[in-house]
């Protein structure tokens, strides 16, 4: 029944430069239901939510709230329309009290002294809200000192206090214990009992069956299916998440002889982040590292590269034990292409030329003095061999396209003559043509005897490029898959920790 619908998203399309994030997605939410939203990394879940929350603007499509079309341009408007989003990183002010956080921006006025806040009323109402959620938190408590689960409850109470009709929860249980999860579910049930519609994003498929009424699967920016939870099974959901036809991708040459061992990680441990990691990578192979966001893949890569410290275990690169700083790793012959290439891989306000040579200066110019002619030759050679699209090597890096920027980062590391390269999401945000080029480059590199550790959230890429795949889940390696064993479902299952 249409009356039942508190929210309807129709034909939502959203495109970012080079990437179609959402294509014609429909979604609806009934009053009082918990509607689970699932899909792999990059399926479009966060983009959809951000559009609803006013953090992004849709390109085409309609948002209808309570039967009325809504134009959401910014978060404040979304809030005004009754949409409340609880992100994974909470939006709380650490050194204010629970009550102050709940009433942020809407502090009640003191009846007798104008201009002052009525703390008594604020605390009493907060207490009532928290109790109605079944939680025992002191409204005077400073948020910073509360546990994660309690902070989350404050966020839920906040949503209640603005009389939100649509509450979105993004991965709410990732940091909670089993008991805390139960409390959260109880609170959610109280919400729905009041007619609030809840959109619940999760990677933990078992939760679909614990708290969900309906479930919608997105894949590659498209709506795939929506079904009642009672009619669904785990297999059906997973199949919907990955059941894509894999387009022809760059043909990898797997018949390369494996050379010496480039990387050995033994019993690596980093408190709270990584546990018991054992990894090997040899020259001539591309090893894929798969897993969900937050599984610890980038953290592992950074530890291997020396960008972050570790507590126990051993990292050996080309036979040398490495620990300490990126500078030391670079000296041994490792290169690292970070996930966020703009923030961590390049200096955007410097010219292309400088970004390419910056990591190789000691090697190219041991005397410390730069010879312009040599620099020019070196950089121009890379521009040619990597087919970097730029009018000049002096162009400010900021003005290059995403794919070109990634090639510049690659050029930087090739220039250092590193033989072990770590790629973190090598083709994210890059158009199809440039993707294929980068894959080809990676293939060439291992053919010439390099070793590559590749982190990727795109399952087709992982399957297509990797000789072997390690799957991570919650800071551990749950499975090592050979090329023959690897399928999208197998990877996803191990990435989600689904053991049945």
């Amino acid at each position: 029944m249409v009356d039942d619908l508190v929210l309807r998203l129709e034909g939502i399309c959203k495109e970012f430069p080079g990437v179609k994030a959402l294509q014609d997605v429909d979604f609806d939410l009934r009053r009082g239901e918990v509607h689970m939203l699932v899909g792999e990394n990059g399926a479009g879940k966060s983009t959809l939510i951000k559009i609803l929350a006013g953090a992004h603007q849709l390109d085409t499509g309609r948002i209808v709230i309570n039967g009325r079309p809504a134009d959401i341009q910014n978060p404040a408007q979304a809030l005004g329309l009754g949409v409340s989003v609880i992100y994974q990183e909470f939006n709380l002010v650490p050194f204010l009290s629970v009550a102050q956080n709940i009433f942020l921006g809407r502090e009640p006025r003191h009846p007798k002294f104008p201009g002052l806040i009525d703390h008594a009323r604020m605390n009493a109402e907060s207490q009532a809200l928290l109790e109605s959620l079944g939680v025992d938190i002191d409204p005077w408590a400073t948020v910073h000192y509360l546990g994660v689960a309690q902070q989350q409850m404050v966020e839920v109470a906040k949503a209640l206090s603005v009389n939100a009709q649509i509450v979105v929860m993004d991965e709410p249980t990732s940091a909670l214990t089993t008991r805390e999860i139960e409390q959260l579910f109880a609170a959610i049930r109280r919400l729905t009992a009041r007619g609030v519609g809840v959109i619940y994003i999760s990677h933990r498929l078992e939760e679909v069956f614990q708290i969900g009424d309906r479930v919608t699967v997105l894949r590659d920016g498209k709506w795939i299916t929506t079904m009642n939870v009672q009619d669904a099974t785990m297999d059906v959901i997973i199949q919907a998440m990955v059941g894509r036809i894999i387009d022809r991708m760059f043909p990898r040459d797997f018949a390369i002889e494996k050379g010496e061992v480039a990387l050995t990680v033994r019993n690596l441990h980093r408190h709270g982040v990584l546990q018991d990691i054992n990894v090997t990578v040899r020259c001539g192979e591309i090893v894929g590292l798969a897993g969900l966001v937050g599984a610890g893949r980038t953290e592992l890569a950074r530890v291997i590269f020396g960008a972050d410290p570790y507590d126990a275990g051993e990292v050996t690169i080309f036979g040398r034990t490495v620990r300490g700083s990126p500078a030391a790793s670079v000296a041994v012959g490792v290169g690292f292409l970070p996930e966020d290439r703009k923030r961590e891989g390049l200096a955007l306000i410097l010219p292309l030329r400088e970004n390419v040579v910056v990591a190789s200066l000691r090697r190219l110019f041991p005397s410390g003095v730069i010879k312009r002619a040599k620099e020019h030759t070196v950089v121009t050679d890379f521009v040619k061999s990597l087919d970097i699209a730029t009018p000049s090597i002096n162009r400010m890096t900021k003005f290059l396209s995403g794919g070109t920027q990634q090639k510049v980062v690659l050029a930087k590391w090739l220039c250092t003559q590193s033989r072990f390269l770590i790629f973190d999401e090598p083709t994210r945000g890059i158009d199809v043509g440039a993707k294929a080029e980068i894959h080809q480059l990676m293939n060439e590199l291992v053919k010439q005897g390099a070793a590559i550790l590749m982190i990727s959230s795109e399952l087709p890429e992982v399957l297509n490029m990797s000789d072997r795949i390690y799957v991570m889940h919650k800071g551990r390696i749950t499975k090592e898959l050979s090329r023959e064993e690897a399928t999208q479902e197998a990877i996803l299952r191990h990435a989600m920790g689904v053991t049945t």
Partner: protein
Amino acid sequence: MSETLWRGWARRVAMAPGAVYALILLSLAFALFTAQFLTLHNLTNVGMQGSVLVIVSLGMTLIILSEGIDLSVGPVLGLAGVVLALAVKQQVPLPLAILAAIAVGTTFGALNGALISYLGLPPFVVTLGTFGVAQGCALILSKGSSIPELGPRVQYFYDGQIFGVRVPIILTAIVFLTVYLILYYTKFGTYIFAIGGNQQALTLAGVRTLRYKAGVYLLGGSLAATAALVMTARMNAAHPTVAVGLEFDAIVSVILGGTSFERGKGWLGGSIIGALAITVLRNGLTLVGMSSSWQVSTVGLVIILAIVADALRRI
């Protein structure tokens, strides 16, 4: 049972901001070193001398809470004092003269606030610039020299008493109460914490963040002018460069008092303790007979050591 109590106590002591340690240690040291320190007369002096710094530090606390900083309070104080003195010399009625001085401070505060909040310029550079502008204005108006002999009605603000309590202390108490109310009982205060702790949360809640961010500097400017009243009364004269270096003392008082630059965490009381600690330090060094030349470097050294120790302690 008593062991856990003791542990809890010990933890709270260990977590206390550096200002507390500084004040206690310094007071003990001077009390031991010189008999004159612990006299009622001297302690009252400390309270009086410290009032200027306390008032300015209270304003600085709010600014630093909002993740900003104000290097211009020194010259702004000097300028406000000069304006006050000139007005008095021109036979302007005292209340109007005081109002003019406060208006000057508030204007500079508003200027800082506008540039930092609405234009998004870095606070320390902007206030370094307004430092220069205020200093220039003060020098121009006063033609580079002091304006002395302001008369007993001005001096009242330092020497006078109300119900037996000296005026500066009453003034400081009033300022403290006002700032306390603002910080803990008004929206403005709540939003200051939010701007420092999680500005995004505030904007998402639909609040016009920028005007509150600018407002802290306005408040800081007016408080600097208020402190100028006490300073001018104390010296019975206005001097354009009298308060150079005050911003340093104020910033240190606030930081040692437990207000953090980056998280929206702060303690008003701590800033007062910090200001008192610095005042005790200067007072004590004078009592001990250290020449003013040595004092400058000793104070600087002690302060840097305190800050570094505090920073290392947190690591």
